[in-house]
């Protein structure tokens, strides 16, 4: 647990123009806009204040908005998430940072039995307008306890929404959208994305939750992924293009609700689907996407849906072992080759 390198200088922001900034800066912009725009908004989490955020996302916000609205918490995940729920019941718009999804396991009771359940169980009386941000995923040699991908667990729960921004623009757009939701929204930020740069439209409206995006159009196979795996999937698509295989790449952006219509429309065109997901294969989020394709697009399929997931092992520390465990561009290309038959 710890940040890399010094804080990145905030880019000079033009008027309504596009600005090139990193994923973490885009989130910081979103947080700054939210804090200055709505007095009900406040941040809570471990080391979000003086330390500037373990991934440097909340750097500078304590100085700008003060300790009342940027609150470092004790290492009490269950209680500061529960307090976030309570404050949301009390009329606030809290943004809770759980440093990484690995520590969210300590707060799962509050998330499942309170955040996701209170509205339904109270007959509609209680709403929980809460945003929770979590870093997620492997690939940084942090070994088994710090490399989990559990989107499948959270997306299983009715009553909450799950988003996984893959680009700086979505990192800001989905955060702003989440803040307008009357129900809890969990934002999964892949830890390898924080330093990735991209264009962000300063005046952009919040991104609609529940809408996927086509990052690359293609005819012969649909590659479906989200969050930290988008880069590898686009790399695989480029390699396939060299071999004359034209792959369409869909970035789901939102896992619950899932944009099944967009996925099925693409499969109806390409008749083949590969789902890329860093979760472990069994009961992964990819399993749900595959099931929905089978249920909704059965007669469009020319081949069984393929899934490229992490090896079913606790994440090893050694680089070559971790790389072997995680989905890679090469394994995605191989999955497409297997699907199309030897001569591709």
């Amino acid at each position, binding site marked *: 647990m710890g940040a890399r390198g010094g804080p990145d200088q905030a880019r000079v922001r033009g008027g309504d123009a596009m600005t090139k900034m990193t994923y973490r800066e885009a989130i910081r912009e979103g947080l700054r806009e939210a804090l200055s725009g709505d007095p009900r908004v406040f941040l809570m989490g471990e080391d979000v204040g003086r330390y500037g955020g373990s991934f440097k996302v909340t750097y500078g916000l304590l100085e700008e908005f003060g300790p009342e609205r940027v609150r470092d918490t004790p290492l009490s995940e269950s209680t500061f998430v529960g307090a976030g729920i309570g404050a949301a019941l009390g009329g606030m718009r809290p943004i809770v940072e759980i440093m990484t999804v690995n520590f969210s396991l300590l707060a799962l009771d509050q998330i499942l039995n309170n955040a996701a359940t209170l509205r339904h169980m109270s007959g509609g009386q209680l709403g929980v307008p809460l945003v929770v941000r979590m870093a997620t995923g492997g690939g940084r040699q942090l070994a088994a306890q710090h490399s989990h991908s559990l989107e499948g667990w959270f997306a299983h729960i009715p009553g909450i929404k799950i988003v996984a921004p893959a680009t700086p623009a979505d990192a800001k757009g989905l955060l702003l959208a989440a803040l307008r939701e009357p129900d809890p929204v969990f934002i999964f930020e892949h830890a390898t994305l924080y330093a990735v740069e991209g264009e962000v439209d300063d005046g952009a409206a919040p991104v609609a939750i529940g809408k996927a995006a086509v990052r690359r159009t293609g005819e012969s196979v649909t590659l479906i992924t989200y969050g930290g795996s988008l880069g590898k999937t686009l790399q695989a698509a480029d390699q396939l293009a060299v071999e004359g295989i034209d792959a369409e790449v869909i970035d789901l952006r939102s896992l619950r609700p899932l944009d099944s*219509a967009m996925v099925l*429309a693409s499969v*109806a*065109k390409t008749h083949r689907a590969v789902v890329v997901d860093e979760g472990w294969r069994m009961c992964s989020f990819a399993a749900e996407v595959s099931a929905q394709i089978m*249920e*909704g697009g*059965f*007669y*469009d*399929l020319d081949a069984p849906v393929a899934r490229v997931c992490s090896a079913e092992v606790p994440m090893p520390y050694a680089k070559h072992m971790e790389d072997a465990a995680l989905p890679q561009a090469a394994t995605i290309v191989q999955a497409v080759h297997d699907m199309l038959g030897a001569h591709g």
Partner: protein
Amino acid sequence: MPILTADMSAGTLVTWRKKVGDAVKRGDIIAEVETDKGLIDVEVFTGGTIERILVQPGAMVPTGAVLAIIREEAGILPAPPPTISSPPTPAPAAAGRATQAPPQIPTAPGRQRISPLARKLASDLGIDLATLSGTGPGGVIRREDIEHAAAARMDAAPKEQRPSLDRSARFRQAIGAAMARSKREVPHYYLSTTIDMQPALAWLAEENLKQSVTDRLLYGVLLIKAVALGLREVPELNSVWRGAEAVPSPAIHVGVAISLRGGGLVAPALHDTDRRSLTELMQSFSDLVRRARSGGLRSSELSDPTITVTSLGEQGVESVFGIIYPPQVAIVGFGKIVQRPWSVGGEVVSRSVITATLSADHRVSDGHRGGLFLASVDRLLQDPARL
């Protein structure tokens, strides 16, 4: 008997704490009951005196059963026992809707809705999908649609040409068309060999004496088993064409040519021929013959063979070179068993022999491999006990 635990449906009365004639008031404990969670006190909710006890200690009774009668004091009138309107049983549709899969997305126009299984079967049986309409939900083409088409094709080859043809003539026409296509498209090569049948026939006669007549074996079954075991040594002959590729099939299903009375031929499969005993093969073979002649074959039996064996010995023909049935890649033929001079240990004797032939698809195997196969069939027949 009161409901005392969440999922209690019956209880055993253990002891009475009051007896007939005792006065009781609301809240008194009048008995103890054994439940799935243990011994629990029974509370009374009305005042009065116990008039009659109906259930004796040790008896197990369902919840709601009357345990005792209490004559209430005139003064206190308890609220009438509330009548409960039971919760509506959920209308299946309504309750189901919340758990239903996303609706089917309409397929693009021109895209046929056909199940993968039906698509595979159609290509195996050479059924043209363009003309077919499905009977599945929303007009989906399913397996039985292909089977009906295949059966219909058997009955009605191109109708418009000869509407008055009888069934077997039309059937011969359909087989003729398939044979012609196979002859044109498949590069056949042909091999033949003569096999000493003496050891097999001697062993068979002896075996049949030991069996009852219902278990009696025909020599044809020995030939079929020898072919099946031979295929294990030359597996490419057991391949089946899948699209543009001949794929060796893991299972060996020998199709046995059966002539139908009044002309016509079918070759249904004896499934897993190599793994079944001679007696089992005999029973299945006999069953196939009976059903073939009464029109009771299943379409899978027609589409499953991975190779075919044809025998014209009974018609007095010494050797027969068959035409391969697509999508198979080989056909084995057996002629009549005849007496021939045969050198045994340097001495010429008269032996019962048979001519075995192989017609095979040169794209998948070559003469050398075909020869190896016939040699192994010959070798297997020399040791019939191990077939």
